[in-house]
């Protein structure tokens, strides 16, 4: 309770504690509660879940999804979707693997080219959405199909099969793996470095969102692009930059997966785009834009990883995972609605 010795008129207005309200307004509240509940649930019913090796296991499952969920959350706060992000990870993996194995390029050079591809895909997505005013849902759905076709078609033409393998024989593989896909021993458990990348990306995204000018613009273009434009926010550039961030980070994540598995399937990545969006929504992002958080999206991905591996740990049929996920998504959406209604009711 803010106990300012104020006049009666301001007293009546500070009826509800500012701290309570501010807490309820946090977009990541639902995801934090959910993550805790899921953790306690699986830690109680299985022994392995809360052990260091168990934790390393589900963190590993959550990390690539988490990195993507965070940047997808930025885009969603900016009011747009990217359905091509999942397939983009496969495209990048294929670019790296094909260039390194079939054309003998150094893995790092191949990675640089994959980044350029990512930037270009994001640029096309962004420019088309901004210029035409079409829903990003449709524009990126088109990009999704284009990339999916290219992944299969080009891979078949070059390798004659629908996969590229043997990345571990390429030059530069070891150093690239050390940066993107190795494991580090902590408390006797092998923790994948992607987990640290995930934490780093979440921290950086949170900083950008809350403490920089572009962060303010991201909230504004998602909340009301017209209002943002009329006060001089470069709305189009902000949106294009967000699309480019998503597909470029997708290129990094795709490279991480390729380095880890040393082979890439041409049909990989399909369906992942929805996992990114689901994690972001569980983390408190509004589908309509203008509201959400990077930490929330990271927590959403954490819930995802814990549930996926928890079901395995519990020895259940993994078919139940989708049921669990569906219920979780509905619950999260309802909770978001409730939290926002609560926040708005307190307006007087």
């Amino acid at each position, binding site marked *: 309770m803010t106990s300012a010795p104020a006049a009666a008129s*301001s007293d009546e*207005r500070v009826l509800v504690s*500012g701290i309570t309200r501010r807490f309820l307004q946090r977009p990541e509240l639902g995801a934090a509660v959910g993550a805790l509940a899921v953790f306690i649930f699986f830690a109680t019913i299985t022994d392995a879940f809360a052990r260091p090796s168990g934790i390393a296991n589900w963190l590993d499952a959550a990390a690539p999804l988490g990195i993507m969920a965070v940047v997808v959350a930025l885009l969603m706060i900016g009011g747009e979707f990217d359905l091509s992000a999942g397939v983009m990870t496969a495209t990048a993996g294929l670019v790296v693997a094909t260039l390194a194995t079939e054309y003998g390029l150094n893995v790092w050079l191949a990675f640089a080219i994959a980044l350029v591809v990512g930037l270009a895909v994001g640029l096309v997505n962004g420019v088309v959405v901004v210029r035409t005013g079409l829903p990003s849902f449709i524009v990126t759905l088109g990009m999704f199909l284009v990339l999916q076709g290219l992944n299969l078609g080009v891979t078949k033409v070059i390798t004659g099969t629908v996969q590229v393998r043997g990345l571990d024989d390429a030059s530069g593989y070891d150093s690239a793996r050390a940066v993107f896909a190795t494991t580090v021993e902590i408390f006797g458990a092998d923790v994948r470095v992607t987990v640290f990348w995930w934490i780093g990306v979440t921290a950086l995204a949170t900083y950008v969102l809350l*403490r920089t000018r572009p962060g303010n613009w991201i909230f504004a273009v998602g909340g009301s692009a*017209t*209002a*943002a434009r009329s006060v*001089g926010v470069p709305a189009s550039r902000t949106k294009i930059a967000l699309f480019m961030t998503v597909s470029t980070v997708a290129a990094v994540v795709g490279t991480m997966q390729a380095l880890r598995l040393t082979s890439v399937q041409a049909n990989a990545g399909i369906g992942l785009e929805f996992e990114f969006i689901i994690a972001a929504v569980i983390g408190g992002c509004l589908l309509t834009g203008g509201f959400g958080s990077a930490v929330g999206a990271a927590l959403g991905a954490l819930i995802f990883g814990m549930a996926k591996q928890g079901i395995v740990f519990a020895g259940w049929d993994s078919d139940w995972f989708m049921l669990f996920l569906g219920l979780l998504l509905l619950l999260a959406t309802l909770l978001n609605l409730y939290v926002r209604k609560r926040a708005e009711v307190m*307006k007087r």
Partner: protein
Amino acid sequence: MTSPPNVDGPTADALLEVREIGKDFGNVTALDGVSMTVRPGTVTCVLGDNGAGKSTLIKILAGAHQHDRGEYLIDGEPVRLTHPREALDRGIATVYQDLALVPLMAIWRNFFLGSEPTKGWGPARRFDVSAAKSTTRAELLAMGIDIRDPEQPVGTLSGGERQSVAIARAVYFGARVLILDEPTSALGVKQAGVVLRYVVMARDRGLGVVFITHNPHHAYPVGDRFLILNRGRSLGDFGKDELDRGELIRLMSGGAELEQLTHELERAPTGDSVGPGTAG
């Protein structure tokens, strides 16, 4: 040049002036032969029914449209604004009905949106959050707006408070002329009163306020001059001493009678004001 009553050549202290200004959209004349002067520390009300040309006039003033005829002067210098940013740079701020506020964002984030203060250099350049918060609070307080919590989303404010935040923002960012587009039209009686108080507050800070409305009851208490538009033409530009509230209302709602009145006003010099029932 045949000036309407109250524009006597270039006015020294005028912040903004339009002379015989006109605008066509295709073959539709949206505005024709309208003149007005905005001086510091005064409130100029632009009244008219829907389709009277109010929006066209303010869009020209705000740089969103360009005029086809007449002159537009800022500080006595003829201008032709091609972008709203140019108007802003010259200190002409427009608060539109939709307010240009983002409902889901905190008040302080909205207040500095597009002009965020920063600290640090290079990659460490960041949004100066504490300065933004304290400035927002102080500026709103200076305008007599006592917000509870600058963290509050703008969407949770009442309509009048939202208008006030938008006005305070325009004042803070150096507006000399404040154009308010129907700020009271969507508000209840009490809320409208709150906004009118801020209009007066802005005037007392020395701003030239252009207050667009179709409600003479809101215009009369705060206005110093009243420009009345009908079908894109001026029905006259009156000082407050030249007409009382009843006349203003009658002018606003006159219908066919107004046409005759227009002719009469065009002939009559300033002093000979319209007595009630002069028509015919």
